[in-house]
């Protein structure tokens, strides 16, 4: 892909930048759409209509207007905060989320970096988000923010274990860490997808989905923000565009885990109908629509469920998810050995 770009562009560096910026083409419109969708989904689940005015049809441009508003807003930095960390944290958060897109195979032709340790890389680089949240919470010099930040680090560190083990189940089944290779292995019809290849991978997927919810701080695991307890958690002191960056990160993270889920379990960019509607461009379509489906499920869960308490969150992780994940890993391995 980089090579193709280099042919058209005057300087190789430009080609690399172009190449790196490509996921942005998906991520930005996606975030605008997802925020709108979230509002619509929540509204209709609550017998409301949601935004209806901006832009005409069902308020489609509401989030664009919101973004413009956010950019214009005053950049408020608390006077007693750690200024540098406070200002830097939102960008670091987005960096962490965006960097992970590098190894997501959007289509058979496009992957940011053809890493052999792709899955490992994603798990590692998403931890940057934790760091930034901790930074934000600490730098705000606000006790609520600090509590939120502490909760986040505890939560994400804990939930990384079941996530990793669930991903490991897939890796045991496929024998590679390279996400492109994993995607290619699932070519064919819907039955070639990994989720159907091994019954225990279904459990692995459920585990992955639950713990990824916790990783991206979505309800029922949205304790870092937990609006009704910690006001806004680590975001309490943020406003305007800096807050917007956290919002962007949250939604980008959602997309990331959804895409990773579809790569690992649901055939990545492969069409469910074999050769029908398949190809590099359809690949992007399938990838994004699979991702959107999981995002819809996340929204659906969010507007259905209450929130867990901190100790229960840890209970769920250490008493339920991790033991089950490890047992499941053994079972996956056994299945792979036997069949």
């Amino acid at each position, binding site marked *: 892909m980089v090579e193709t770009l280099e042919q058209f562009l005057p300087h190789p560096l430009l080609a690399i930048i172009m190449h790196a910026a490509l996921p942005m083409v998906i991520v930005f419109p996606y975030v605008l759409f997802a925020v709108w969708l979230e509002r619509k989904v929540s509204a209709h689940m609550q*017998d*409301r209509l949601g935004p209806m005015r901006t832009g005409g049809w069902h308020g489609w441009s509401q989030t664009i207007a919101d973004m413009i508003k956010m950019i214009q807003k005053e950049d408020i930095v608390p006077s007693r905060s750690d200024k540098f960390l406070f200002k830097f944290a939102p960008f670091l958060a987005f960096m962490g989320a965006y960097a992970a897109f590098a190894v997501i195979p959007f289509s058979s032709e496009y992957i940011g970096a053809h890493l052999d340790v792709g899955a490992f890389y994603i798990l590692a680089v998403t931890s940057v988000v934790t760091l930034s949240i901790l930074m934000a919470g600490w730098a705000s010099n606000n006790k609520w923010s600090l*509590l939120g930040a502490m909760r986040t680090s505890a939560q994400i560190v804990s939930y990384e274990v079941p996530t990793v083990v669930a991903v490991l189940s897939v890796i045991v089944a496929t024998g590679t860490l390279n996400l492109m290779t994993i995607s290619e292995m699932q070519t064919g019809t819907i039955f070639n997808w990994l989720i159907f290849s091994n019954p225990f991978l279904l459990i692995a997927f459920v585990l992955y989905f639950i713990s990824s919810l916790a990783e991206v701080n979505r309800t029922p695991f949205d304790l870092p923000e*937990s609006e*009704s307890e910690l006001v806004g958690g680590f975001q309490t002191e943020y406003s305007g565009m800096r807050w917007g960056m956290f919002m962007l990160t949250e939604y980008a993270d959602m997309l990331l885990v959804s895409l990773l889920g579809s790569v690992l379990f649901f055939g990545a960019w492969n069409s469910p109908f074999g050769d029908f509607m398949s190809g590099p461009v359809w690949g992007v379509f399938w990838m994004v629509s699979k991702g959107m489906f999981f995002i819809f499920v996340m929204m659906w869960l969010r*507007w259905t469920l209450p*929130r*867990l308490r901190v100790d*229960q969150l840890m209970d769920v992780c250490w008493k339920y998810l991790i033991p089950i994940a490890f047992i499941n890993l053994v079972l996956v391995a056994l299945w792979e050995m036997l069949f």
Partner: protein
Amino acid sequence: MPELRTEEMTINMGPQHPSTHGVLRVELVLDGEIVVDAIPHIGYLHRCFEKHSESMNDYQQVIPYVDRMDYVAAMSNELGYAIAVERMLEIEVPERVEYIRVIMAELQRIASHLLAIGTYGLDIGAFTPFLHCFRDRERILEIFESACGARLLYNYIWVGGLSHDVPSNFKDKVRDFINYFPPKIKGYNDLLTYNKIFIDRTADVGVLPPEVALNYAASGPVLRGSGVDWDLRRNDPYSIYDRFEFDVVVGKGEMGTVGDCWDRYIVRVREMEQSVRIIEQAVEQMPDEGDVKAAVPKRIRPPEAEIYARTETPRGELGYYIISDGSMSPFRVKGRSPCFVNLSVLPAISRGSMIADIVAIIGSIDIVLGEIDR
């Protein structure tokens, strides 16, 4: 290695906080996330209700102020006040008025409980039940609006009667509502009440034992949630509540201990069903004809006397201690507000819980700051 130094953190929850239901400030002393002590500070919404009442030049004028005490259950507040003054004046109100009052008070109870369980869901983190509750509460408000023209602060129940007669289609509207509403309760139960996460969050949290509840003079769903079978509508009947058949719902500790947050919550849900029962009977028995203003006195001048009259509002025992010096304006009006008393339990039941539990406990007490601070 030297021992790690830890210290308690004091943190202000409120006065501006999403889960304190208004402007309550709770001073939390925290050890990590564990609450060592919770000290409520109130008074941010103090509007001198009692002083205002003394300066009114008519007993009737107090009613708009009474409305604003518990602004989500204004009808019940008015009813309590009207009953207190009527007892001082020793006037009997017409039969039809009594029925309308009961229907209104029970509709108000449903509306208020809907708000309580909706916002409780919100406190726990579930957003959707909140709006579903509002959807149904809206129907009640519509009935109120058609009767008196206001949706929240009614000024409807007057001393000796009502401000308006109910509209001609009132009975049909109420019947529509009581047919519409019970299936919706199942929706709330599916969505929230029996949700595992919700149960985990509320069961065994903020346990208020019955002796403590009585000693703190808690009332309403808070007292009944602790398993004390005490409802003024049955135990000290006012108006015409002795004519209706209904059960007093008490907490049984189905999901945990008796007196936990879930019990207080479920008492409210089940009380709505009982209120529907009362309304059903009242609508059937209500006479069609009758003047609702017959007993409204032209000038309210009670004899030199004092009275303490109490009624069961959605939040508990609302008492009015009124002293009259024989003049047109009250000498002293004290509102014994249920939330004020119920909230004083908070420090006793919140020690040792977590921050998230504080939110659950405050929500389960179902406070309205307008009534606490008056």
